[in-house]
């Protein structure tokens, strides 16, 4: 019996809204390009910084590891918005992803093009964005995804049903305790009432050891070495088949900076793990093919991979977020009726879930993970700029209809 690590990295950058004021609404329709090169919402500057700190060195390392260890596997989901940014600002990063996929040891997971929560607001729009993403990655990487993940790992039985009917072989989501109950995430599962689809659940403890705790000097396991980590895995119950390490790609070099030793850890992990007989790496598809589901998982309500609540409240928890997303999706019919690509693109870019994430007030005062990722002074500023952009967009739709 073999045991596999399923390493999956989520790669995404949003189109942040620049400080777009009421003075510009109606006048200037540029929401996403901040002219100030040092502006906190300058998407190009942020992308280039992350590319240098994370994408380039990590991809180079991954490529070396894939060449060195034929058993090593890695998988990604890459949002359409990030692919756009790579095409625009760094063909080099894009090329490095292509090289990784060309090894045949990497899998690409499907999702919405715009990293949106459209599944919960418009099934029509959701399907459209999944198809857009599929077409995009097909044309760029020559791959058609077989496994699906929804934005932020947002998942419920309906999503499983949809993915099953659509023909995916698997879905990735959070291995959250209340849904697992006494069960372990280290197996393949099957959504209840599904026919052909399997479920891979994130082992959030072991994933977060790398993603969140790696550099925490107050953590009693600090410093974390590949040897120690592999020992943990080897000490697991013998018949647990797959350890699902799902995390943000930017863990490597951005959330955990290079000087924390995160690259050394990644470099040593395959070698250390593969030293033990029976250990291997798998892509999600390989794990689903190799292991039979051990049980059914029933999730009638929506879970995500965020915060201690593991629900959607980081995106649509407070009234500002609810208002913003409601107004945005109310625009759907009118905006699609324009058949104007520029308008529709801007509308879809406003759907990027990061926009409402920046409006989250849950732990605003603690300066925690939400503040770390926000380019704005406060959730309220995020709301103001979003609303100004939305008003302007709505006016453009009206003008379009009037034939102006």
């Amino acid at each position, binding site marked *: 019996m073999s045991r596999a690590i399923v390493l999956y990295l989520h790669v995404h950058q949003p189109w942040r809204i620049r400080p777009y004021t009421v003075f510009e609404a109606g006048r200037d329709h540029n929401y996403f390009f901040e002219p100030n090169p040092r502006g906190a919402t300058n998407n190009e500057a942020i992308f280039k910084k992350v590319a240098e700190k994370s994408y380039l060195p990590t991809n180079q390392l991954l490529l070396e590891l894939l060449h060195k260890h034929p058993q090593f596997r890695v998988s990604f989901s890459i949002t359409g918005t990030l692919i756009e940014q790579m095409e625009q600002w760094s063909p080099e990063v894009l090329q490095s992803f292509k090289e990784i996929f060309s090894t045949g040891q990497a899998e690409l997971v499907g999702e919405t093009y715009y990293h949106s929560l459209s599944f919960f607001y418009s099934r029509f729009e959701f399907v459209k964005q999944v198809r857009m993403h599929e077409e995009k990655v097909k044309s760029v990487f020559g791959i058609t995804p077989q496994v699906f993940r929804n934005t932020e790992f947002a998942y419920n039985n309906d999503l499983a049903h949809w993915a099953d009917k659509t023909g995916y072989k698997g879905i990735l989501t959070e291995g959250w305790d209340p849904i697992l109950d006494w069960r372990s995430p280290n197996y393949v599962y099957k959504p209840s009432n599904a026919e052909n689809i399997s479920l891979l659940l994130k082992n959030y403890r072991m994933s977060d050891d790398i993603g969140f705790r790696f550099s925490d000097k107050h953590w009693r396991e600090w410093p974390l070495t590949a040897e120690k980590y592999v020992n943990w895995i080897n000490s697991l119950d013998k018949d647990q088949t797959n350890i699902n390490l799902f995390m943000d790609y930017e863990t490597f070099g951005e959330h955990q900076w290079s000087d924390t030793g995160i690259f050394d850890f990644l470099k040593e992990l395959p070698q250390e793990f593969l030293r033990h007989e029976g250990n291997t790496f798998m892509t999600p598809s390989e794990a689903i093919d190799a292991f039979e589901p051990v049980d059914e998982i029933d999730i009638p309500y929506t879970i995500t991979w965020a915060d201690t609540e593991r629900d959607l409240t980081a995106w649509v928890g407070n*009234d*500002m977020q*609810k*208002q913003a997303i*409601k107004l945005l999706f109310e625009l759907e019919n009118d905006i699609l009726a324009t058949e104007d690509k520029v308008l529709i693109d801007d509308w879809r870019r406003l759907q990027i879930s990061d926009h409402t994430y920046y409006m989250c007030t849950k732990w605003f005062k603690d300066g925690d993970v939400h503040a770390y990722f926000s380019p704005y002074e406060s959730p*309220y500023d995020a709301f103001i700029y979003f609303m100004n952009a939305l008003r302007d967009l709505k*006016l453009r739709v009206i003008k379009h209809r009037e034939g102006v």
Partner: protein
Amino acid sequence: MLGWELPPHNSGGLGVACYHLAKQLAFKGVSIDFVVPYQADHKIDFMDVHSAIQATPEELQLPGAYDSTCYSCEDSEACEHATPDTLRAQQAHYTKHVEQMVQKTAPDAIHAHDWLTFEAGMRAKELTGKPLIAHVHATEFDRSGEHHGNPLVHEIEYNGLMMADKIIAVSHITKDLIVREYNIPAGKIEVVHNSIDNAALEPIEAANTYIYVEEMKRRGYKVVVSVSRLTVQKGLNYLLEAARRALYIEPKLLFLIAGSGELRDELLERSATFGIAENILFTGFIRGKAWRDAYAIGDIFVMPSVSEPFGLVALEAAGYNNALLLSKQSGVAEVLINKLTYDFWDTQRLADQIVAIAQHDVLRSTLIQEAANEYAKFSWQKAGDKFLEIYRTLKPVEVLV
């Protein structure tokens, strides 16, 4: 004259009122030494402006003349060499400067504007025996809205009012408040309303700042404007309540909320809770053209203040052709005839009035026209005359032994 701000370094109407009043008095032959806490070039030639502290407004980071929530009670004596970075420390410096000034040359009268300068005014009176005029533009009861306010400020206000030979209130509601809350005999208080010089408003340029609002107006929307600091005194929570009710009846309304302040985040969230965020636009703090254009784009000007001693902005709004909707708790309502009023808490009535003005073109145009006619007759001259009269009746106090 002891003041805390003059344009363009003002955070509200206080500085504007001081400026015009002093100018009027200077034209009538009064020689004025005006003390402000900071150093700046005001380009004023009709009086001498003195700086109490050798630092620019930016360096002092004045919390503004209105924010009484952030004062700390530092020992004013001990701060002589420290950077005056708290309002209390700045007031101590200010007082010391005034003491030195009046000891060199005693004035004929001391005219102190609001509690910020009352301590300096009292010291000046003590040292020179000259009469003290306490000019009340706002009390702590006004600034704190429906809350209690800062007890230290209350005490300074009370002492200043007690020590003053004459008290000037900017409206009858302020006079009543002083009598009611501070137990000052009504006979000691004169009401001199603020005013406006109709030449003082700069003309509107053709191109408005708020293109989006303009576009929506073209599509039948009516614009409700409010210009104020976003503080509890200004009652914007009530305006939002009314907006919700009004939008239910008349969806083609936009509310342009100009100004900044500690309530902004709360107001934003509330507008989202009410589901009307799309119709509520926040401009942040604005000056100059953006400020004028806010009035210019408006159809209806609302002053929803919980307590507004005067409310100069309403006159400016009239000058820029808005229909006026004022809370009854505002002094300016005493001097304007053509306006609609409501009690600040009566959001039902406010909503009703907003909808009525928005939907009835005749009502709106009549209110706008009549208020503009009234506005054209305003000037500071009458206020200046009243002050001269008051100055003349005051005699230096004999020192009691």
